[in-house]
């Protein structure tokens, strides 16, 4: 066996040299700092540093589940928000890319595409401000429309049940156009002769979309899906902090907002690190499982 390996290494040595800068980068900037993970098991104190701080084993992990009010609610909220995102925010750019690709007039398509990613460039603060404004029961446009349709105005921002929808909708608003760029690049890579062949075989437009365009995008879709699954246990706190208010804590409070309040700023590094590690482990398990599944369907996988 060994001899084959050596031969392979020698044959491909140029390729290995090519990867060298990248691998160095990973080692220096990603793996060397990994020792930081150790502080999850300590009571890290700046003065003593990592090697001097006392070890407390799994204390922080246990604390998270036992001394946190409603740890399970936080986990549930985090998971549910991610599931909603996966169900709605993930497919949206795919759909839009497919639809955009079907627009015949090139100039119109480029115009729509450019316009669609504009919200991505506005800071979250501005977008959230607008969202809250639109949903206001007294002055918001959404409620105006509801009233015109004869429905009572709804105080959206005060109903925990609406929060997930609002969050995901604002995510879509902000990221939809930007997300299509990658998918359009994938579509651009599809061999045009395939379309010719399909047409001659009698396939109609919709069949072409399904079997050629979409299939061409599939490898990219799959790796993005797998990567997203790795993030199921976390969701960034910045936007939620801007969006939430005391009436929404039941559904809006997630793991990261709790950690943020608990003391990301107050130097409670160990606790924050422990929670982060917990999220990472869960995510890793999910990624590995998803990747195995992806390999079976053979359209593309992470590794």
């Amino acid at each position, binding site marked *: 066996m060994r001899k084959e390996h050596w031969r392979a290494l020698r044959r491909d040595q140029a390729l290995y040299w090519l990867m060298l800068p990248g691998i160095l980068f990973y080692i220096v900037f990603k793996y060397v700092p990994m020792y930081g993970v150790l502080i999850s098991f300590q009571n890290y104190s*700046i*003065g003593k540093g990592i090697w001097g701080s006392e070890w407390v084993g799994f204390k922080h992990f246990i604390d998270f589940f036992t001394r946190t009010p409603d740890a399970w609610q936080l986990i549930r909220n985090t998971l549910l928000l991610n599931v909603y995102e996966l169900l709605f925010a993930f497919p949206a750019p795919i759909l839009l890319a497919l639809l955009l690709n079907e627009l015949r007039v090139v100039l119109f398509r480029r115009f729509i595409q450019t316009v669609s990613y504009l919200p991505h460039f506005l800071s979250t603060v501005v977008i959230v401000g607008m969202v*809250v404004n639109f949903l206001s*029961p*007294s002055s918001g446009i959404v409620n105006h429309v509801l009233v015109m349709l004869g429905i009572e105005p709804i105080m959206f921002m005060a109903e925990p049940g609406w929060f997930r929808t609002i969050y995901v909708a604002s995510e879509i608003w902000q990221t939809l156009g930007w997300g299509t760029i990658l998918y359009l690049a994938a579509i651009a890579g599809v061999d045009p002769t395939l379309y010719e062949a399909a047409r001659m075989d009698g396939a109609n437009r919709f069949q072409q979309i399904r079997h050629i365009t979409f299939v061409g995008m599939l490898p990219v879709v799959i790796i993005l899906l797998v990567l997203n699954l790795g993030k199921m246990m976390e969701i960034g706190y910045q936007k939620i902090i801007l969006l939430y208010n005391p*009436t929404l804590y039941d559904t809006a409070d997630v793991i990261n907002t*709790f950690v943020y309040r608990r003391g990301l*700023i107050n130097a409670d590094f160990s606790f924050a690190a422990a929670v982060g590690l917990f999220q990472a482990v869960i995510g890793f398990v999910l990624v590995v499982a998803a990747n195995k599944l992806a390999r079976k369907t053979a359209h593309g996988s992470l590794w």
Partner: protein
Amino acid sequence: MKKMKAVYQSRTLRLVGGVTMAVMLAACTQNGGGTNTTSKEAVDGGNSTPPASAIEYDPARTGGLELPLSAEPITYSFFIAERADAAVSSDWPIFRAMAERTGVDIRFEPAPGAGFEEKRMLLLATQSVTDFFGSLTGSLARQYGPDGVFLDLKPYMDEGLMPNIKAWYEKYPDATVVSTAADGGIYSVPTFSEENYISFSWMARGDVMDELGIEQPGNTDEFYDMLKQMKAAYPDAYPFLPISTAPIGRIGLYRDFAQMFTGIDGMLGYDREADEYRFAAEDARFVDMLTYLHRLYEEGLMDPEFALLQSNQFDERMLSGKSLVTHHFKGRVSQFNSKARQADASTDYRLVPMAPFAAEGVKPFQFIKPVVFDAQSIALAADVKQPEIAVQFLDYLYSDEGTDYTNYGIAGKNYEVNGGEVRYLEEEPDLLVPNLRKEGVLYDSIRMAAFDKSRQARVLSPEDAAIDELQQPYIVDSVPLMVATEEEAELEKERLANLTKHLEQKLTEFVMGKTAINDESISQFVREANQLGAAELVEMYNTQLERAGE
């Protein structure tokens, strides 16, 4: 194939060429920047610091410090939070003037207000602090000082190198309490603000009150009547709009009304009558507070979205007349009035301040901002070069001469002295403070000691002056200063944020009617709060209070 090869070759060349140019551009600009810095230092070193004998100074005004502090020009780095409305500049006139007089040049390394706390935390955690470290809190200094991050100032104070700061400490002993760490060292120096400074004020639309013949409310019942009258005249408006629903802190709906009904400083705070910390929910009058707020909500006297609003919506409602009454930073009175005038020069819009009020039987009061303000402290790096000079410069900022610079600016440019009285030269009262700040005057963490009020003639806008006058009879000393031990700080860190969030949520549910207000629900509320640590925290605060009293 050959043609393609040629094409690809030229494209590769272009790519490589582009990258090379970019790199060279970066390198060039880098060098350019570097040269500029060194040439600046050379200029300063060469020209701006005259020999020692040429500087005239009045020892009474420098507190005995001898100028210049350093014969050779020396530069210190200074970390500070940058205000969004006034950019930090190492070229500020007051600092150039101070450099001329002391020989100490300051190079600012500002961090923007957004993300500033993270940067500060990182610098502390990695022991990469600058020579002068500003915008620091006393508790952080007490925590990190003994760890070797900051310089212990006590020996220098004892040696007599910091006479001005020593004098301030003697005048306000709280400063010693707040800056002494567990190991006895003093690692930071706080800001000493003006005496009797009031931060907040109730405010209402004076034009509407005049129109409806309403007088200033003296208690909560009269406040309720006032709101009712306003609502009757303006049915589309929701007269009262609080700026936040914080239950604890310096301002917030629940905090304010807890004070008004129980006399306690917030849901969990200091009770002046009882001289101890208490949890307001356990007070007999808590149910009155809830009922009152619920009534305001139900009858449309308080904006139904009070818990949801973002700050831009708040501003919008106050300015468009959707809301008429609020409790806010006192500066808002003149700010809102001027914004309204900008929108429509002929408007009648006129916010006026209201005196504090409370429920029947409870005495209304207004806390003053404590003079010793340790949320803006300065510390020196433990390894600062030439510490004797550094501590003296720090002390200089607290001397009369230094205070003149940081409070007034440059004589003849920003202010003039007329027969012992100081007068600012800025014409527009609205622009005075903002413009001064742009030059580093009255800047957080630079102005470390407030001017003596008897000397100053600060141009207060007529509104600000009216507010101060109105609040005078209600001023009480701020809550006694307390210091937490490491364990207590841990407990607070663990419990307080979640408790606050819980209180906010549950109180909002009471007010909005989602939870009925009765004995049972209140008992449950108290039980849940105690489970989250309310009782523990109260006990802890009382222990700290006792210790502070010794």
